């Protein structure tokens, strides 16, 4: 299964599953990240660094730990 960590720059993905606790889920929902949403990877994780995504026109940075808990499917 692919997670946000192993997606390359400029790729569009669809979020399939968010594992991890209640708190993390809520936090992501607050920032507009839900299951089924389509996000663009602006900067992929580099040397264990965070991932930068674009969702509905907003940029959100996710640390590698969290990004690895988000399962996605590549589009096109």
């Amino acid at each position, binding site marked *: 299964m692919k997670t946000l960590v192993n997606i390359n720059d400029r790729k569009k993905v669809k979020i399939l599953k968010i594992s*991890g*606790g*209640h*708190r*993390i*889920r*809520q*936090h*992501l*929902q*607050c*920032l*507009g990240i*839900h*299951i089924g949403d389509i996000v663009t990877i602006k*900067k992929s994780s*580099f*040397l*264990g*660094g*965070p991932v*930068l995504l674009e969702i*509905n*026109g*907003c*940029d*959100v*940075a*996710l*640390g*590698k*730990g*969290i990004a690895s808990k988000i399962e996605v499917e590549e589009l096109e």
Partner: protein
Amino acid sequence: MKIAFLGQPNAGKSTIFNGLAGYKTITANFPGQTVNYTISKVRLGDEIFEIVDLPGIYSLTALDKAEIETRNFILSGQADVVINIIDASTLSRSLELTLQIAELQVPMVICLNMIDEAKRKGLDINSEKLSKIFGVPVIETIANKGIGLDKIFTSAKEAYFNKLIPKMQSFHKDIENYISEIEKIIPANFIPKVPIRYLAIKLLEGDRELFEEMKIYNDLLNKVHKIREEIKISHGSPADTVISSERHALTMNIFEEVTKIGEPTKTLREKIDDILTNKYLGYPLLIFILFLIFFMVFEVGKIIEEPIISIFDSFIQKLPQYISPESFSFFIVKGLLEGFSGGLGVAIPYLIPFFIGLTILEDIGYLPRMAFLMDTIMHRIGLHGKSVLPFIVSYGCNVPGVMATRILESPRDRFITAALSVFVPCAARTTVIFGLVGAYIGGVATAALYFFNILIIMILGAIFTKFIPEITPGLIMEIPPLRIPTFKNMLMKTWLRLKDFMLVAWPLLVISSVILSCLEFFQLDILLNKIFSPLVTWILGLPEKSGITLIFGILRKELSMIMLFQAFDTTNLSTVMTKIQMIIFTIFIIFYIPCIGTIGALIKELGTKRTVLIIIISIFIALTLSSLARLILSLF
């Protein structure tokens, strides 16, 4: 009439507040700038409005301490009208909060701020439609240019006097049924002024604070748990996710109904942003930008400092011609003059360029990008990227720096970040570093001291993490778009910070100087210096006379250095201290006991016990580092 500004972080609440109340609270282009609320009275004709600026909040389920502050204020029912300030360019996400505020059933106004940004993104929002859907006034503003702010009060009045309470948006039938089941068993008036529906939904969402408050109602909580289980089975995901998806679906519907989406205009900004966070170019640029600010503070500071100091100098030198140098009044006047010139000549020249530099970084929106870049490095010391924000704020002043730790989610991260923040050389210590090492030794030594400081903080962080292991989930942070700072905001913000210095620190400086003069007159300074001489001369190897200045430094760090001039009765410190002594003195000042203001902030955020622990650690570190420095530097 009390009007509360409620909205998601970085929507422009503080900018609107300042636009109406005069510049009273700091605004910045990063989510989570405001961490406590500010109230101001505004008189308009013969009406008085009370407006409240609150920390930004993503949802009414508070995630961090700043958000809890806002939530408590809102649930206390003090606000007569709520103005929901929305960053129009993130409308679809922001409406999720609007739906939750609507559940509170308080007269409301929706303020679509940043209409300019929304246009850039190609969003064309139909305010009338939005106003029909919620049944409340909707206004459009561009706060940083002051456009549309006049409509705030008129629409607030309209909402208040016509009781324009937002229309409820319903979820799917089955969820609504569950909600009304819970509503029936919630004790009436459980929290006065908070509608039962709001509580029922929060219970369904599994809100921890509310569960805690309701723990005596066993039957109720059992029922809630049962319903949550039922939802989980029937929907295939946890109840909180189900509610959030319901809200998400509702907001998407509203969003699509009121917005026409066109082509976004791509500009230079995106390109610059791309370079700033580039994995190869980002880091050299980061170092370059910090160096640029450092250089600016150093050069500009020197240019302003020299003429001011020389004016006061010649004045103080001529003083014995007017007043007899043995009299008590001579000591008083000299103390006054020295305190005054210390503030004007040594502190302010470095503070002004420093605050301007900080403001530019904040307003452009570079800080969240730093957080992004530094995330990996922060993990090395057991924290994550967001901790960069309190650290940078601490370079201005440790008090807001310690308070800024509220934006962190876990208590552990808050403690470590606050404990490390107090070692960040604030503006006051910057004046010491620049005024002493910078002025007498040079730029390279000054830069080296900053570098050394960062290194020590990293090492300390690594040690802290050994004792309190990392459990943090990691970075989750919105990165707002880059913005061009307005000149006015830059001036006002620098002025607000400078005013703080002038009203608090400067008078303290003058008073302390006079006290020191009195001590000198009665020759008590000699006694005090004798008491501290084991520390000052034996361990630190400093002149005995500098002992007394270290005591004053606990009040405000810059006092130590400025009062050196007075203690030694000279305007040229190089005649009384060696370069090595200056470095040792500065290192000691940077690390020893946080100033009174910071101690207050620490107690408020972390409690007395932990504050005492931090103070003890700081004394230990200051002594170790300065005696080590003495040892090593004496080898050269």
